């Protein structure tokens, strides 16, 4: 994926991003109010709504909608689920302005106990 050379700021991007930001608002509201009603049911990480929110954040409404639809179709009792990340998009964000959903969807997995220990030993030498 080719990355932008600069963050998308300014009036033009503000206008272009209006639909995207409206959908982000709707998805955030859904995640706050309706998601908790059903508890954890999703077979994937990130969950479908978290995936959708990141997809729209990274790719905008059109491509995002396609990605969400495909994901919801794949999330059914016959699929094995698992870890399924949003494909990387072209956008970049200023230092410290990375949207929270992207941070949450890509947590750093700490090493396992044994792996961590052997790592420490290597450092000692």
């Amino acid at each position, binding site marked *: 994926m080719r990355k932008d050379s600069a963050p998308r700021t300014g009036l033009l991007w503000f206008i272009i991003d209006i639909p995207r930001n409206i959908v982000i608002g709707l998805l955030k509201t859904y995640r706050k109010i309706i998601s*908790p*009603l059903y508890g954890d049911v999703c*077979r994937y990480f990130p969950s*479908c709504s978290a995936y959708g929110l990141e997809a729209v954040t990274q790719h905008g409404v059109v491509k995002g909608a396609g990605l969400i639809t495909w994901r919801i179709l794949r999330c059914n*009792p016959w699929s094995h689920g698992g870890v399924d990340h949003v494909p990387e998009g072209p956008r970049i964000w200023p230092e410290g302005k990375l949207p929270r959903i992207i941070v*949450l969807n890509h*947590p750093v997995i700490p090493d396992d106990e044994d792996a961590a220990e052997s790592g420490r030993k290597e450092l000692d030498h």
Partner: protein
Amino acid sequence: MNNFLDTILTPFTYVVSWVLWAFHELFTAIGMNADSGVTWTLSIIFLVLLIRTLLIPVFVKQIKSQRAMQALQPDLRKLQAKYKGKTDQLSRQAMVQEQQALFKKHKTNPLSSCLPLLVQMPFFFALFRVLNEASRASDDGRSIGALSAEHIRSFDGSTILGAPLSETFLGTINSGAINWAVIIVAVVMILAMTASQFFTQRQLMTKNMSQEALQGPFMQQQKMMLYILPLVFGIGGINFPIGVLIYWTASNLWTLGQQFWVIRNNPTPGSEAERELNARRAAKGLPPVGMKKEDADAAAAAAAEQRAKGQRHQPQRKNRRKKK
């Protein structure tokens, strides 16, 4: 937009109205009054029973994968130990990610996905549309889906405890001539609907969540939702026709019963319900779920030994302890 939604809903409306019609014919054939609200109410309840019965295979599939989960217990415990005490949001996210990867590796997943819910939604909207349209269609002498104009007239005119099935709480308030039967029946149904929703949710939270999930960062939000959602549904309910309230309440009661059964027989590992299940099993002389008898005995013996050791407090040099 409205037309687009109507087009999508049309086949569902047809199915829902046909099922209502079929049950209504059936109940009339066995001697019930065709124009009685009781007959129509029963038709709506049987529509719920039919939809939920058709969804049982999906539910059984889910139960089976929950059983398969027992094999993952050691791995899951290891994961829980790894993240013990790490309650910040990012650690929780990391844990969920590792858990999902583990499920995938073992080709089993205890979560239901949202499909069972998504499948029911168009039927619910279709029923809502049928019941909502009924009084207008009755005035115009129109049919809706498989229900003829005559059936619609019968449905629109039918009452339960004096409240028309197609009337809403808000509708009767705004009509100027308040029908108190509608107010009373609607309030009772809204209370039943929200109460069943509340108990389903609370049962899930108090009984079927692991210690880790209960300490997670989303817990506070979920606890708040437990009390806010009944309010939302209560307020939304004043807009629903009595028939929709009946459908929703019946559906909630089914969910409540189904969940009670699941929690009793297939509880989440590390939850209160699992402790209760293991206590019941112990009373019958059975080992805890997912453990073989010998393993359980060995674990109990080890625990007893540990306790005995704890009492003695023998001072020991480090190198000696290692040798043992």
